[in-house]
């Protein structure tokens, strides 16, 4: 394993054109990515590399990151796009390291983030608006699929029917927003994927789920109760819809329609409920035995409960 890291370090020296690469260490990453941190000639960087045996490469992520940066969204600066390069054995990208915290519970509770908590709802609205202003044609190859069809398929493949989820699917189909704008959406725009420092948002991270869709998808997902992490307020647990919408409107000139955002929040709640089944099934199938994943199976009903509340509210 040590020689793996040495080999990686020498590969990084080549692609960074650096004389000195030090402090290379692996961070916890996602299911399909490895994340490494290192220092090159005195500056800190983060390497993301496709996990061994994972098909599909980095797809559009580096291109989206670059487009977001050009559009004024706070993101880590892309330094090397290695999505089609082979010096590091597998597709990769290198970004400049951003200082801050991503753990939602700390951001929501620790004293050092009290000013950040005040600032975040508006900063998130502004960042989303800046992203949604970017022309969809700036990045090629982004998928545009119907989320209802997709998640119905995911649920059916899992083979665990839930009547509340079916009511939600019906309601979402019958109340689908009309004439929506299509643009680049982040696809996982929530606390946990935001780098936050004492002043608030420093970078929007984790762009691997970005796609073409309705911009209100990002705002709705941000407000799903699971992503409030126990916080009392709808926007990332710490702000009001009004604060989010005001900032979005100030940046884009477009005021979000509360009902459309709520439609996406409802779909987001349904999606997270289905994802909880997926996570538990990774344990149950033996793919990844873990009591943590097993426990997530008992969070499915939190989403059923939230759907009851959302649907009752929207129709009362």
């Amino acid at each position, binding site marked *: 394993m040590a020689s793996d890291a040495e080999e990686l370090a020498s590969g990084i020296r080549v692609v960074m054109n650096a004389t000195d690469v030090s402090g290379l260490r692996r961070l916890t990453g996602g299911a399909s990515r490895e994340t490494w941190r290192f220092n090159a000639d005195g500056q800190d960087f983060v390497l993301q590399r496709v996990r061994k045996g994972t098909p599909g490469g980095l797809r559009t992520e580096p291109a989206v990151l670059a487009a977001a940066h050009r559009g004024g969204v706070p993101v880590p600066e892309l330094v090397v796009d290695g999505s089609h390069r082979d010096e590091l054995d597998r597709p990769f990208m290198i970004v400049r390291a951003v200082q801050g915290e991503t753990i939602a519970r700390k951001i929501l509770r620790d004293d050092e983030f009290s000013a950040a908590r005040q600032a975040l709802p508006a900063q998130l609205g502004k960042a989303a608006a800046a992203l949604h202003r970017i022309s969809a044609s700036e990045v090629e190859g982004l998928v545009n699929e119907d989320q209802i069809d997709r998640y119905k398929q995911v649920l059916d493949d899992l083979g665990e*029917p*839930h*009547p*509340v*989820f*079916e*009511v939600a*699917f*019906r*309601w979402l189909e*019958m109340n689908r927003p009309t004439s929506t704008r299509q643009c680049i959406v982040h696809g996982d725009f929530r606390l946990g994927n935001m780098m936050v420092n004492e002043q608030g948002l420093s970078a929007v991270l984790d762009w691997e789920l970005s796609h073409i869709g309705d911009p209100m998808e990002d705002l709705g997902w941000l407000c799903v109760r699971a992503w409030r992490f126990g916080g009392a307020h709808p926007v990332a647990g710490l702000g009001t819809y009004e604060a989010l919408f005001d900032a979005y409107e100030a940046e884009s000139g477009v005021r979000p329609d509360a009902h459309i955002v709520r439609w996406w929040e409802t779909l987001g709640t349904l999606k997270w409920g289905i994802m909880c089944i997926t996570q538990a099934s990774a344990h149950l199938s033996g793919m990844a035995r873990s*009591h*943590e994943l*097993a*426990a997530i199976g*008992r*969070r499915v*009903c*939190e989403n*059923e*409960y939230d759907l*009851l*509340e959302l*649907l*009752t509210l929207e*129709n009362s």
Partner: protein
Amino acid sequence: MTAPHDRPSAVELLEAVREWMEKDLMSGIEPRLQFHTRVAMNVLDIVSREIAMGADQLQSHDELLASFGVKSDAELSQQIRNGDHDASLLEVLGRLRPVIEDKVRVANPKYLR
């Protein structure tokens, strides 16, 4: 309640393990394992609550399904997907609510508003 088994009951056994985790194990381990231990304690709590409430909840669930003329969640789900309840989705939700609240009462009672 526990016959033919001896004391401790199933719930009492879970409590014993949980107390050991909380009072002894937690203090001697690194933060990452503390997190996983907290998850494990939470799982034991879920099982305790399910043992305490499960029988009554099973009956409520059976009664709910019977009121729709079905034998399983799968059958009811299919009815809803077929559009059989389109004219009364809200009413269906109202009828499902007690069973969903039962599930949350076992899984994470603090979640209920």
